[in-house]
């Protein structure tokens, strides 16, 4: 059975598509898409990167957050065609083959997740924050994450996780220097 999403992803005969090339997690991907396909659906159904979650689908919850040229965006509120020639990073791109990203490690160490649904979006928003501001205060973390909703944790451990990651990343920077 084809789902509604598949219908959009697998273009109907006669419906115009556009060929786009998107750098997803560092890898060039060239695909044909209908203009109305949302970026979230391209990632999940088209590229099978199901780490990007669709929560509210109404631009409210932030579960579908990905990094678009380094800035957090809601992938349910962008067209896939708009990613043509741009870089997209999803949660699958965070860890290297052998090592978690410090933000991921922070969420593990500080128990920053329960059901895990909001976690990919939370972590990507956090990564973008720490790249811009390596030493955020607790308030700044809360402010930066205010567009990502979590219904489990009450946010306490998420904030702790991000602060943990910030410390780790600063220590790593220090080691490199």
């Amino acid at each position, binding site marked *: 059975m084809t789902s509604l999403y598949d219908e959009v992803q697998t273009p109907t005969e006669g419906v115009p598509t*556009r060929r786009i090339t998107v750098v997803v997690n560092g890898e060039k991907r060239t695909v044909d898409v209908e203009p109305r396909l949302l970026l979230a659906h391209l990632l999940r159904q088209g590229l099978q990167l199901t780490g990007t979650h669709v929560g509210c689908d109404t*631009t409210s919850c932030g579960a579908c957050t990905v990094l*678009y040229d380094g800035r957090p965006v809601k992938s349910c509120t962008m067209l896939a065609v708009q990613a043509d020639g741009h870089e997209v990073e999803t949660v699958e791109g965070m860890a290297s083959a052998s090592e978690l990203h410090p933000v991921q490690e922070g969420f593990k160490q500080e128990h920053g997740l329960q059901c895990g649904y909001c976690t990919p979006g939370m972590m990507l928003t956090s990564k973008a924050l720490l790249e811009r501001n390596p030493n955020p205060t607790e308030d700044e973390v809360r402010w930066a994450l205010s567009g990502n909703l979590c219904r489990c944790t009450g946010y306490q451990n998420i904030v702790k996780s991000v602060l943990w990651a910030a410390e780790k990343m600063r220590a790593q920077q220090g080691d490199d220097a």
Partner: protein
Amino acid sequence: MYPSRFAYEAPTSIDEAIALLDAGGGEAKVLSGGQSLIPMLKLRFASPATIVDINNIPDLDYHRVDAEGNLHIGALCRHVDLEQSTTLGETHPTLAAAAELVADPIVRSRGTFVGSVCHADPQGDWAATMVAQGGYIVAQGPNGRREIDIREFVLGPFVTALAYNEMAVEAVIPGAKGTPRGSYLKLERRVGDFATASVAVSLDMDGDVVRRAGCALAGVGGRTIDANDAISCLEGKTLTEDSIDQASDAVAAVAEPRTDHRGSDAYKRHIVQTFVKRILTNLARTEQKAA
């Protein structure tokens, strides 16, 4: 949810975008940040035949202050650009205060100032700051450019004075002749929700005397409420407890709130009065410290 089918165009110049809008004959729609338009497409409140995505047009992402102190905001200047601006607070404090309250941080990294004004949502933060400060939208069409005063730009909920073949290329907001003072306060039940009530106040100070006072409200009427006349009672006066009380009462009187799940009309009017008073009292304290 996904939008109904549309033809997608990604012009790389303003002229090309206008030609596409013109050819669309009223069925083409400009896509900038998309943080209002894409949700509307998904809900099928909007189903244009053609989407003209202006994000590939270069050199529209600026915000800069010209020699006369006017702030120019290009059609692709994102909310986050204004939020992270290091100079906006000095020249346009009302806008700087609003910048961090628009929607939520993720929407702010994509949505645009000009797009938000063109969306003309009665709850819109930017339209309120513009009405309080004065200013105009530069619209470009097949016959060239024209300036549309912000108070004549928004005609009603989601309706603007733009013709179908015109594109808003820039917003221009005048600077203060004296010292700019102002702020923006918004009550929202949670981040990203529509405002229960919000208040923009913009003052142009000559020493401790108010040279010009501007005010606008969002969320408390079917449109952005122009409260400039109401707050003009401050002009020529200093900020004292009496003048502040008079101004906050006058502004609260012109709100047009309606009772809904966010609160009763009386409650919302009270918020407006409280916010005007809070902003002005804080500004009076700043003036005293500066003196």
